[in-house]
């Protein structure tokens, strides 16, 4: 696991959540996992391909997602599955967009794929190369889980092929 690739995602999640929720937050737990990811609630997965390859999963339980949505919107919103899904997807978009901005300005080029619903109970099993960092952000609105598996693409980084842009 390359921490220099992971750190921008941690910083982005910290900034987006702190601003959107207007509260301080802390990282409650942090672990490396090779085992398959077991989701806690509604999870959105975003894949990155190019100089850097991997995926990020955002995972919130329903009650937390509704509270986060209301904090982000600054208004009461009716609870619904659509609201929960939209919240998790938008949170994923904002965090990954901000992290991608940092990595791109560092010279990495890659494509960010649209978020997809991660609806299986178990994620893909990791390996030594793709072990994931799992962290829990504790916020006033509840826990937000982020699971990152990221690595350099050796072919791309040798300049044998051009990466895309998101």
């Amino acid at each position, binding site marked *: 696991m390359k921490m220099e690739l992971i750190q921008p995602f941690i910083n982005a999640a910290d900034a987006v959540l702190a601003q959107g929720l207007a509260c301080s937050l802390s990282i409650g737990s942090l672990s490396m996992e090779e085992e398959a990811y077991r989701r806690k609630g509604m999870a959105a997965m975003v894949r990155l391909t190019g100089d850097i390859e991997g995926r990020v999963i955002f995972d919130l339980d329903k009650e937390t997602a509704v509270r986060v*949505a209301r904090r982000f919107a600054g208004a009461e919103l009716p609870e619904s599955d659509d609201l929960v899904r*939209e919240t998790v*997807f938008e949170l994923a*978009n904002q965090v990954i*967009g901000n992290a991608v*901005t940092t990595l791109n300005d560092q010279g990495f080029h890659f494509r960010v794929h649209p978020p997809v619903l991660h609806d299986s109970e178990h994620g893909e099993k990791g390996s030594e190369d793709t072990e994931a960092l799992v962290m829990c952000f504790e916020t006033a609105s509840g826990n937000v889980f982020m699971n990152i598996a990221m690595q350099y693409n050796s072919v791309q980084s040798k300049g044998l092929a051009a990466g895309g842009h998101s």
Partner: protein
Amino acid sequence: MEQFATMKRSKDGQPIRYLIVDDSVFARKNLARMIETFGGQLAGEAGDGAAAITEYDRTSPDIVLMDITMPQMEGIEAAERIVQKHPEARVVMVSSVGYQENIVAALQRGARHFVQKPVKPEVLYEVIKYVMGEDGSVANAAAVGAPGSAGGAQ
């Protein structure tokens, strides 16, 4: 949500009309709430670049708030097509992907400004004021104690 001094069109004193383009309904609703606090009016919404072009033709908004990464047609291409057809169009890109190349590409292809998500209302407000320039005016600024006065630098 914080209330801002109402921004209006200088020519007729009517609310500034916005077209909001984002594939996320959640993001569109958030932006719509923000522009309400500016005294703006929602002219239309679109979920992708192609729909944005159609909606622009239909609604003739004063400002377009355009996401970049969207299905069908991305925001920068949609902005370019709108500006080619309507050179007076004021398109503000609103995206979480704010790296330099993206911003430069958007501005080169006709966008007037760029705001990074998560959007801070006070930042968007100032950008709208700047982009509207003399075509926009801030009403009752003194009454509500909001920053700025009529018009903006262009």
